[in-house]
């Protein structure tokens, strides 16, 4: 042994979007350490936005210069068509969420101060802010980029943690209803750690089965290793628990309403869009690359999970009275719809591409709409912060028709009404599922869509056909939120009327499939 290690090959150009984000996060940390306090915010805001925009541009450039067909960074990361598409989506959604974060009044003045204490009072009057939010968001986004692109389970696990840990923290930083926020953070942290343990144990068992954590090698092992089925099944199930937890599929959905409700709304928007996209990317990669050959065994289970998720999400949403909890349950239900698309993956190449492109389109459509919806939630405010109770939204259509119309548009998109992006998302996913022979699942999907439409429409009715309360909430729309709303409306409408370019793009991305 001569004590030297041959240098690993790292395709820096391919990993550039991720590296840029991580690099900027570290610069953000340096800013925290060395820049004077009054300058930090002014540095962070452009830095974060430019980073995300730059990473997006690099992603586009990569997609145009050609998509590699082999994993990079010693097999840890696969920058393939779907990964690039998901990267682009996450970066845009993160950009939009950061615009929301930029607006004042979402984050706690001093996280360490006890809620309701004199210290907190002092921090508030002094106008203190936590500018650490920006590097934390960038860390989370970096994790989101790595998660769906990870080509082995170990890298995926690390990415999962990189993505989640900053989010656990950010959840606890809400300015209003701080106890709820802190509770949400602790819950998310504990349950997230719990589910990570499942993921890790699943990884260990799969390693025991296949002798490798590389996704492709696991798939090869499916055909060659015999007599170790127990290890395989339980490993896959545990891995599944970890992934399904992140997308909030039933029965692992319990954290979602509490966390979405308690978090600062811009962070909720980031989680509901970016995390969901990343988690679905990873789920697809694991189930298609590593477990593609095991499809006969996981499809029935996914059926069950998808049905349960849709039904639980749609039914529980009905009795919610907190607008953010309602959106959280709606997000659960949408997770179920997306799982229908996962079920539609199969052994047929063409079928896979169409299901994958449907899912990718759905993710884009849903991501924008959900960011927009949460952006609207931030604008309707009472004296004590956001007007979270649904009854406070009564008559908003009369007081602020534009805000109400915009919110209705998002709700209609969630419900999948034609001419909104949501319609084409559902249409594409359901179509793929029918082609894959999952018609009963589609029927359940349609029924839960109908149930879900009930509570979306209920909010619209409440906004337009109830009389506003005399002391109704005020509507404050800061500049960034304006832009977010505009972008989301544009995306929702354009994808609903003119979906072809994005469908084509998703199709091109899906055509190359995941690197196997």
């Amino acid at each position, binding site marked *: 042994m001569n004590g030297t*290690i*041959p240098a*690993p090959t*790292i395709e820096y150009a391919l*990993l550039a979007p991720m590296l840029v984000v*991580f690099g900027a*996060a*570290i610069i953000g*940390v340096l800013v*925290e350490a060395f820049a*004077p*306090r*009054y300058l*930090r*915010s002014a540095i962070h805001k452009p830095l974060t936005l430019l980073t995300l925009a730059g990473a997006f541009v690099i992603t586009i450039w990569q997609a145009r210069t050609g998509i590699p067909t082999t994993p990079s*960074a*010693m*097999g*840890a*990361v696969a920058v393939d068509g779907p990964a690039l598409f998901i990267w682009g989506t996450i970066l845009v959604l993160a950009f939009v969420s950061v615009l929301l974060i930029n607006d004042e009044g979402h984050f706690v*003045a*001093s*996280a*360490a*101060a*006890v*809620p309701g*204490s004199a*210290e907190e009072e002092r*921090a508030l*009057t*002094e*106008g*203190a802010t*936590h*500018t*650490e939010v920006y*590097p*934390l968001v960038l*860390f989370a986004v*970096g*994790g989101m980029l*790595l998660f769906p692109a990870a080509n082995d389970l*170990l*890298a995926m696990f690390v*990415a999962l943690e*990189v993505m989640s*840990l*900053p989010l*656990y*923290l950010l959840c*606890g930083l809400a300015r209003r209803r701080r106890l*709820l926020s*802190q*509770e949400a953070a*602790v819950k998310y942290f504990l349950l997230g750690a719990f589910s990570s343990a499942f993921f890790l144990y699943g990884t260990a*068992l799969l390693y025991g089965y296949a002798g490798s954590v590389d996704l492709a090698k696991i798939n090869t092992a499916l055909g060659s290793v015999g007599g*170790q089925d*127990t*290890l395989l099944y339980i490993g896959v199930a545990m891995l599944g628990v970890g992934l399904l937890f992140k997308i909030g599929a039933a029965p692992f959905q319990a954290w979602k309403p509490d966390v979405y409700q308690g978090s600062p709304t811009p962070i909720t928007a980031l989680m509901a869009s970016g995390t969901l996209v990343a988690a679905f990317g990873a789920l697809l990669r694991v189930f298609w690359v590593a477990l593609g050959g095991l499809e006969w065994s996981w499809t029935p289970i996914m059926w069950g999970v998808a049905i349960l998720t849709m039904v639980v999400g749609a039914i529980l949403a009905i009795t919610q009275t907190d607008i953010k909890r309602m959106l959280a349950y709606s997000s659960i239900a949408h997770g179920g719809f997306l799982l229908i698309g996962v079920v539609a993956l199969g052994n047929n190449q063409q079928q896979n591409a169409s299901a994958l492109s449907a899912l990718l389109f759905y993710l884009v459509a849903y991501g924008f709409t959900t960011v927009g919806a949460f952006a609207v939630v931030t604008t309707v405010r009472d004296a004590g912060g956001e007007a979270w109770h649904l009854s406070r939204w009564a008559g908003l259509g009369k007081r602020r028709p534009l805000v109400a119309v915009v919110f209705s548009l998002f709700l209609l998109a969630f419900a999948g009404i034609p001419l909104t992006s949501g319609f084409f998302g559902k249409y594409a996913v359901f179509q793929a599922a029918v082609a894959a022979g999952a018609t009963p699942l589609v029927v359940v999907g349609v029924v839960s869509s109908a149930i879900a439409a009930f509570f979306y429409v209920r909010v619209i009715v409440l906004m337009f056909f109830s009389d506003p309360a005399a002391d109704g909430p005020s509507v404050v729309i800061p500049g960034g939120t304006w832009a977010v709303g505009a972008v989301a409306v544009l995306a929702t409408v354009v994808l609903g009327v003119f979906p072809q370019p994005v469908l084509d793009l998703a199709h091109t991305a899906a055509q190359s499939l995941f690197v196997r």
Partner: protein
Amino acid sequence: MTSQVPDLWPPSAQEVVFLLLGVVALGSALLVVTTRQLVHAALWLVVCFGALAGGYLVLTAEFVAWVQVLIYVGAIVVLLLFGIMLTRAPIGRSAGLDSGNRVTAATVAVGTAAVLVTVVVQGFATAYTPLEPGGGAAATLGASIFRSWVLPFEALSVLLLAALIGAIVLSRTDIRPANPAADAGGPAAPTTPPHPPDPAPPPADGSGATAGETGSGRVSRDGG
């Protein structure tokens, strides 16, 4: 990875030591969850981790063994003990350490253990790998980490950095306004002269302790 299984009887010295270490780890783990003294629980944890480290050592993974000792015994348990001291948790016997859900918890634990043991036994009952010296040495591990696993490794460092920042965010109390007094535009700035850094800030754990005393939602709902 499977090769010819040699005779299991008579056991070799290595096997005997390994078994004994296993018994120690198991026993101390049980004591961790059954003792009524918090500090004792932490100390039993040291024993448990130590036994595990011994197990690694027997399996020729000496680097992992020392890491186990350094990180878990040296850092994490010490951190736990600090936590116990700083949060004013009761030292000595306390009845509150026993949960009312003992039966359920025991059932779940036994069930889980049964499943996992079954899995491992089913999966590896016939697997046998002869130990080779140096297989778990620092050189091999280092080469593996800095070559095949270099990207996850770097990502882990990012993770730790994020955790660090998070810890600072949650504990720091000396946060000053974003606009200094010099900025005339700041609304509240002129009334508050810039403070020098507090020489003795309130203890970082203060928030946790007082939150417990004020009976905040988090503590009451999660703990009781």
